[in-house]
């Protein structure tokens, strides 16, 4: 099996061969230092005759959110051609899914979108539960919803903060991080860890929330909303910010549909998709929330979209806290869920159930040959899991459909024809998370 080489068929301009160009440029630099005149970069300039420059917007850069590499062909400040290279954070999560049991992989899932780890955990557990055909108790569903929305707020506020920082409004980022620490306090009280939570299990969650959980959430709901107003006041009255994001990086609705965009980016372009509303899971259909949609599709509408979604998330949290039921938090079938620890220590049957679930070779075994595609709404878009099982305790294929992958595919098209500084503004508004993109 030989892979085909990078093919330029069907394209007007050849695919920039990234690595060879780099070697040529390096050789050219050495030649230049040794006094030999024509280097590759100079050759490019001479041959084209119009001063075009190939610039690397490398994986290590303060304005690339994560390890994203762009190669721009510049003519002055205008980008004539753009190409992206990803994979600098590829870790092999999908291959790990074939070697880890279903319960174990949840720890891996929160390293994907590390800004909102709970959404990844919830998405994965929902997928495995759908594969097995089990339901979680209502309290568990409500708690998962509350924590997911808190995590979504944390993600969106960070995106807005970084968007501000990239365009020079550094205070916005510091304020965003300060209020994000409030979310971290809640997450730490509930899950034990600030960032990589691994909170959900197949059939439930790790453990029930502490008694002071309502106080935490209600004080958060009091302290957080003023920040939204402050950020609006800071940024919307700032002509520089508004001019730098308005009508920059326009993604049309048709392109959003065709390129498979989802999440705030798609909704900012007018595409009305939201997995929570379209195919509800975890009881989202009982909450009354709006799905805001903008029309222009530029970076400004992506900013407004995220701020409006934060407000809708706060609304969902209020409703979920008001209707939080009591009861168990784990599905009560011991073929999938671990029994309570004191039962394990005291009761023979629970011990056997525990043993069978934890030991390798036993554990959760879905029907052989079954597959499922299950999607949830992560802050970046539609996070989908395609799980195929062969009847053993590890998945046969665990495919993660990352929203950032399909969101980022359109990025070169969007920045072509724009200016270099607009590329920074567009990239920060796209909110690509490299961990999820590369897995």
């Amino acid at each position, binding site marked *: *099996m030989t*892979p*085909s080489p*990078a*093919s*330029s*068929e*069907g*394209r007007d301009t050849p*695919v920039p061969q*990234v*690595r060879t160009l780099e070697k040529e440029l390096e050789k050219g630099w050495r030649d230049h230092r040794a006094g030999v005149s024509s280097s590759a970069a100079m050759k490019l300039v001479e041959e084209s005759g119009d001063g075009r420059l190939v610039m690397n917007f490398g994986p290590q850069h303060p304005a690339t959110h994560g390890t994203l590499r762009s190669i721009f062909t510049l003519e002055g400040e205008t980008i004539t051609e753009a190409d992206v290279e*990803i*994979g600098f954070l*590829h870790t*092999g999560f*999908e*291959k*790990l899914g*074939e*070697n*880890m049991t279903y319960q174990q992989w949840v720890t891996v899932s929160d390293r994907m979108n590390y800004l909102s780890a709970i959404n990844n955990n919830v998405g994965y557990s929902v997928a495995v539960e*759908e*594969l097995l*055909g089990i339901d979680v108790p209502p309290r568990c569903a409500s708690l998962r919803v509350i924590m997911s929305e808190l995590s979504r707020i944390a993600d969106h506020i960070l995106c807005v903060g970084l968007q501000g920082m990239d365009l020079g409004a550094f205070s916005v980022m510091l304020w965003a991080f300060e209020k994000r620490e409030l979310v971290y306090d809640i997450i730490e009280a509930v899950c034990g860890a600030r960032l990589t939570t691994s909170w959900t299990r197949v059939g439930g969650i790790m453990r029930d929330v502490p008694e002071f959980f309502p106080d935490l959430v209600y004080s958060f709901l009091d302290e957080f909303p003023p920040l939204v107003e402050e950020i609006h006041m800071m940024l919307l009255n700032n002509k520089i910010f508004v001019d730098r994001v308005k009508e920059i990086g326009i993604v049309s609705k048709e*392109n959003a*549909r*065709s*390129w*498979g965009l989802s999440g705030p980016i798609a909704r900012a372009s007018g*595409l009305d*998709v939201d997995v929570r509303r*379209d*195919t509800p*899971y975890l009881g989202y259909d009982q909450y009354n929330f709006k799905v805001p949609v903008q029309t222009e599709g530029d970076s400004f509408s992506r900013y407004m979209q995220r701020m409006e979604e934060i407000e809708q998330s706060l609304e969902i949290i209020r409703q979920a806290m008001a209707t939080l039921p009591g009861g168990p938090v784990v599905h009560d079938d011991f073929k999938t869920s671990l029994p309570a620890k004191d039962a394990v220590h005291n009761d023979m049957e629970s011990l056997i159930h525990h043993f069978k679930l934890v030991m*390798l070779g036993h554990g959760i075994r879905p*029907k052989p040959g*079954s*597959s*499922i*595609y*299950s*999607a949830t709404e992560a802050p970046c878009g*539609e996070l*989908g899991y*395609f799980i*195929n099982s*062969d009847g053993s305790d590890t998945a*046969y*294929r665990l*495919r993660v*459909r990352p929203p950032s*992958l*399909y969101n*980022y*595919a*359109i990025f070169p098209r969007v920045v072509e024809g724009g200016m270099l500084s607009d590329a920074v503004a567009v990239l920060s508004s796209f909110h690509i998370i490299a961990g999820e993109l*590369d*897995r």
Partner: protein
Amino acid sequence: MAEMYPPHAALPADLQKMVLDTIEHQGQTQLRCKVPDHRSLLVDFRNQQGYDYLVDVTALDHLGKDTPERFEIVYVLRRLADPRHQFRLHAWLSESEPSLASVVDLWDSARWGERETHDMFGIVFDGNPDLRRLLMPEDYPAFPLLKDYPLTGREERRQFPRVVPRGDQMVEEEPTDYPTSIGRGMHTPEYDEEVRRDSKPRQ
């Protein structure tokens, strides 16, 4: 979750024959076909039936199992006007000729979906204008998600020099011999001599 309803019922008769079987599991529909037929089915789904959103493209490798072919390409399709109309099309692809027609002209999201499937499995999509590797380095010698490729790889991750300052220069040496851990079979590796790490500055 997506509800049960038959996407293949609206296909014309000659395309209905291409659908080998349908599987319903937990309310999700899955159609199966073989590889050259997938293109006509997808064209029909896109143009006649209005499945305008390609959610994902991926593949499965059934090495050593009793399946018609080794590879199974999965397309997840959705109709935006009614998002509950979502189903998957699985196409069997043989190992001896792992190439199939691309659907880039129908949905642009297939560009990177197919690119990643190529990167991970080595499957060639004819007609994709930009079929380079996406996540792995360009000159990586293997396709990682194939079942005969081990999880820890074949030592590609140690093929870098060790960069140390020595005196005036930055010198490249052999990498340190690091005892790597082992995957599922968790055991403690044996060391020849005690591995010591201290926090003194390097000399």
